[in-house]
């Protein structure tokens, strides 16, 4: 049977598969040993894992993170979240149809005392911020426990196959994210005062100043003197007709499936949201051999880095700015998407609808800081700090840096005078690293048409400068020497290509006039090697705006194994050489709209606002119009927020609906947050000692 796996990846190592058998609804299937059940199913082409007990709608992967319950299946008789449950040989997996039946036969249980531990500092989250903070605490010998709910440290770094922005010194710019995670985790091992727990989820910070932690399925209570919330952020969802269909989810879930589990959850993907998350997800999809039908961004330009958007466009993925999703179409799962142009108030412009066939829609419309642990710690009276996305949504490069600041700050609070002061320059650097993209400027004017010249297609100010530090002749400098300013060519290029290889945006080309000034050779960095090319192949060259410059033959392909990058050369007429920013890899046929747009005759209020409890926008809007502005009362009446995810998705949607209905944010009463962070079997709590 066909497996939907990524067998070839330009960046990630594809492991040798150790396959085992399992059964899904009676059918024998093959899967990788110990992979999550969800990924095993997806690899076997199963995307519907069951049907909701309320409305019978198809359910499948959604968060891939153990936060919701949409991926529930029955594994060996017990209802489990398939994204968090590893497959075992000959497992009997059944789809969850309606309410699951509670297993009748159970093993007798042994009750053991719950292990209680103390630590000076508890860091919740082992991503870029948590790891950097732990390193600082480790340097100062502070007794620290760092926990992470995944099986490897690194947080979302693990999923980032692209080279990083920032500077080499402060945030390892030019190194790929998943390597940074490994490096940080490795570095941490040298500090004996830091203990790390993976597969460990914080469930709640209780009023008796104990933090309930589920470690490898065993419940433990930890009493910290201080807490650092470095738990990251969660993705926002959107309300639109058809948002209840299966195969609509966030970029985080997508990256988990594709980059961690190396399965191919989609053949044809459409992305909503042109921030860095959406843009990078598009790039990751191409690297996974997935067709990216398009990306829509409601703003007139993408909020993510221009280099990311440019890169995606010139590879052949249309980036539809001033466009929004109108509806998702399909019976159980996504069959197509309709997008529409929007005016400056984000209202759909009638007659501009276009429908594209696709099987999956990614929603990448922004992140919200994960604030629960901070609020809980404050309520319990434990001093608490935040870092990374839990503090403020920004790039991982910023998270690493503000994690470092938080770590030193806490070390100082714990150890006092013996710890050095935080240098003022750190705060300044932190500000720069989290800065939003700045001005877009024109290409640099370089009159010289001889020798080798790097053409820098990076025209928008972002905090990034590895091209300036890597150049052996010091020929690239930012305009004012700062991290944020644009890099400009200032000197004598020797054509070594190092800047091409390190640039995270693949935004530098070389134009070499030395052999033939009329037909210079253009060198382009390339890293989607799963779409391979060889000398003699023809490729459509593209300019920075993804305009076609003509088809040209590949002159040379030079692999750089260490950087997982190739330098590809074309000989082109001098008139266009400097315009060449890259070449197209995806066939334009992929992105052709259907002849007729599918426009919903449904009113938008049929969109779901609470996917767990199947509550529609219309139901909630009716209550708001009755004068209710208390999320607790909306929850009481509709059950929105009472489901397994605990209002993690709907709270933001309801708040946006309240705004739309003209209720000032200050008048909105938020949901009361209660234990526990994720659903956990009752048998976990008295066992202490676990299974």
């Amino acid at each position, binding site marked *: 049977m066909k497996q939907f796996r990524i067998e070839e990846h330009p960046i990630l190592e594809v492991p040798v598969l150790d396959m085992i058998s399992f059964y899904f609804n009676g059918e024998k299937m093959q899967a990788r040993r110990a992979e999550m059940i969800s990924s095993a199913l997806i690899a076997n082409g199963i995307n519907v894992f069951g049907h909701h007990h309320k409305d019978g709608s198809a359910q499948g992967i959604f968060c891939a993170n153990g936060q919701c319950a949409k991926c529930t299946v029955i594994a060996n008789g017990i209802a489990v979240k398939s994204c968090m449950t590893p497959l075992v040989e000959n497992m009997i997996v059944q789809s969850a149809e309606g309410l699951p039946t509670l297993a009748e036969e159970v093993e007798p249980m042994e009750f053991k005392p719950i292990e209680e531990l103390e630590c000076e500092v508890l860091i919740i989250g082992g991503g870029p911020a948590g790891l950097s903070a732990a390193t600082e605490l480790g340097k100062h010998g502070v007794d620290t426990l760092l926990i992470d709910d995944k099986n490897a440290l690194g947080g979302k770094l693990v999923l980032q196959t692209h080279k990083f922005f920032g500077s080499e010194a402060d945030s390892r710019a030019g190194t790929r994210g998943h390597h940074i995670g490994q490096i940080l985790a490795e570095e941490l091992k040298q500090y004996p005062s830091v203990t790390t727990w993976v597969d460990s989820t914080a469930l709640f910070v209780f009023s008796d100043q104990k933090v309930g932690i589920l470690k490898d399925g065993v419940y433990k209570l930890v009493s910290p003197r201080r807490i650092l919330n470095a738990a990251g952020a969660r993705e926002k969802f959107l309300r639109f007709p058809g948002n209840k269909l299966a195969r609509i989810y966030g970029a985080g879930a997508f990256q988990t499936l594709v980059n961690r589990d190396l399965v191919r959850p989609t053949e044809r993907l459409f992305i909503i949201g042109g921030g860095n998350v959406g843009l990078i997800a598009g790039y990751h999809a191409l690297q996974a051999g997935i067709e990216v039908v398009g990306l829509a961004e409601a703003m007139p330009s993408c909020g993510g880095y221009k280099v990311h958007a440019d890169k995606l466009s010139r590879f052949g993925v249309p980036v539809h700015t001033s466009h929004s999703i109108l509806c998702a179409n399909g019976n159980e799962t996504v069959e197509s998407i309709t997008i529409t142009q929007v005016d400056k108030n984000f209202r759909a412009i009638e007659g501009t609808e276009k429908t594209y066939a696709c099987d999956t829609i990614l929603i990448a419309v922004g992140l919200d800081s994960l604030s629960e642990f901070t609020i809980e710690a404050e309520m319990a009276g434990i001093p608490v700090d935040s870092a990374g996305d839990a503090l403020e949504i920004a790039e991982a490069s910023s998270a690493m840096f503000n994690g470092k600041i938080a770590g030193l700050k806490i070390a100082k609070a714990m150890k006092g005078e013996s710890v050095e002061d935080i240098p003022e320059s750190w705060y300044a650097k932190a500000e720069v690293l989290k800065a939003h993209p700045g001005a877009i400027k024109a290409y640099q004017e370089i009159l010289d048409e001889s020798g080798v010249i790097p053409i820098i297609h990076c025209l928008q100010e972002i905090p990034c400068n590895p091209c300036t530090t890597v150049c052996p002749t010091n020929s690239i400098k930012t305009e004012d020497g700062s991290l944020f300013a644009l890099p400009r060519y200032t000197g004598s290029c020797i054509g070594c290509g190092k800047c091409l290889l390190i640039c995270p945006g693949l935004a530098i080309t070389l134009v070499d006039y030395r052999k033939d000034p009329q037909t210079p050779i253009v060198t382009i960095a390339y890293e989607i090697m799963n779409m391979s090319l060889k000398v003699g192949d023809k490729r459509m060259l593209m300019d920075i705006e993804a305009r076609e410059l003509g088809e040209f033959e590949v002159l040379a392909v030079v692999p750089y194994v260490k950087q997982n990058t190739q330098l590809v050369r074309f000989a082109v007429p001098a008139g266009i050489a400097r315009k060449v920013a890259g070449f197209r890899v995806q066939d334009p046929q992929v992105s052709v709209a259907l002849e007729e747009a599918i426009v919903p005759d449904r009113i938008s209020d049929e969109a779901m606002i609470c996917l767990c409890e199947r509550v529609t926008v219309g139901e909630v809007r009716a209550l708001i119009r*009755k004068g209710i502005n208390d999320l*607790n009362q909306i929850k009481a009446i509709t059950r929105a927020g009472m489901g397994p995810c605990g209002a993690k998705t709907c709270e933001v949607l309801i708040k946006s609906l309240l705004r739309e209905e003209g209720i000032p944010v200050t008048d909105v009463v938020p949901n009361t947050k209660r234990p526990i962070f994720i659903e956990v079997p009752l048998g976990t709590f008295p066992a202490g000692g676990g299974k």
Partner: protein
Amino acid sequence: MTYDVIVIGAGSIGLPAALYLAEKGQKVLVLDPEHGPGQQNNKKAIGGVRATHSDFGKISVCLRSIEIFRTWHEERGDDIGWMDNGYSFPAYREQDVKALQALMRIQHGYGLNIKWLSAGEYQALVPGILMDGLLGSTYSPEDGSCSPLLVTNAFYFHAVKAGVEFRFQEAVTGIKSEHGIATEVITKKGSYKAGMILNTAGNDAREIGAMINDDLKVFPDNHEAGITEPVARFFGPMVVDLRKAPGSANFYFYQNIEGQVVFCITPDPPILGIDNRSTSEFLPICSKRMIEIYPRLRNLKVRRTWRGQYPMTPDGFPIVGKSLNAENVIHAVGMCGQGFMLGPGMGELLSRMCLNETTDDDLRVLQSFDPQRDFSAEEAFK
């Protein structure tokens, strides 16, 4: 503004009272410090409703409540999730068998439908329950459950429709009285006059009483509860285990109409005061006891837990009656964690008290709840 009745507290008791008064043509104002109805302890209730108490007062009020809940959908149109799944008190000790059976004789005297099941019969009702040592169980099939959240909002919207005025985020800060009559109810935002005042203030009942120099013996203590994921129905009645264990007295759980198991435990010794923050102790203690008596529950996932209060009185019976110091003030307080099940019946009773329409039965009920009683008795299962 002048009202016929001001109700202090939009909770389990205040809301039904307000609705029934308005439906009898009274101009009613409800004052509540929270943002909406039922936001104090009403929403913390787990939803069990029983008439199988030990005295005429509670039995009679709860029988009426059950009647109102049971017919609500039919009569008023809203779904409140009523389910007549019954209550059961399984006994694992001879002393419990004796006590429960003695109580059953009293309950039969009041005409309640409650029977004794053998261990085998009980197993059919609660498949998988611990049989080792099980001596039998009471079963009262006409008791049941419904959603406090839906009930509260149903009462609230019907009350709004009937003309009740609600002022939320208005805590009562004082009550003016002259010559044994309360004249004005004061909040930070205004003052309001009324012919009658109902103190249905739950946790705050004692403070409200003190405003007219009434010493109401209402002392909230803390309880924690939890709810699981929903699963297909696998057992019937509320299961109440009367035994004590280290750290806890009785505990109880049932499967609600959504298929979720809702559970609650009584801390021992009681934790006095008002603290809504969750402790690390609740889940380990409660889940251990639940799994001991019902091993199947171990695979059921806990979804959420919460903490609330039982506004307790010294003897476990509510305090309902006129103030000694202001004759137009009626207290209906100290529901001892049973406000939700007492609510509708109590609301009707309060509406009759306000309008001088009390019946002989009402007067008999009110004897149980007399504010002037000596509080030395003890409710059998308080």
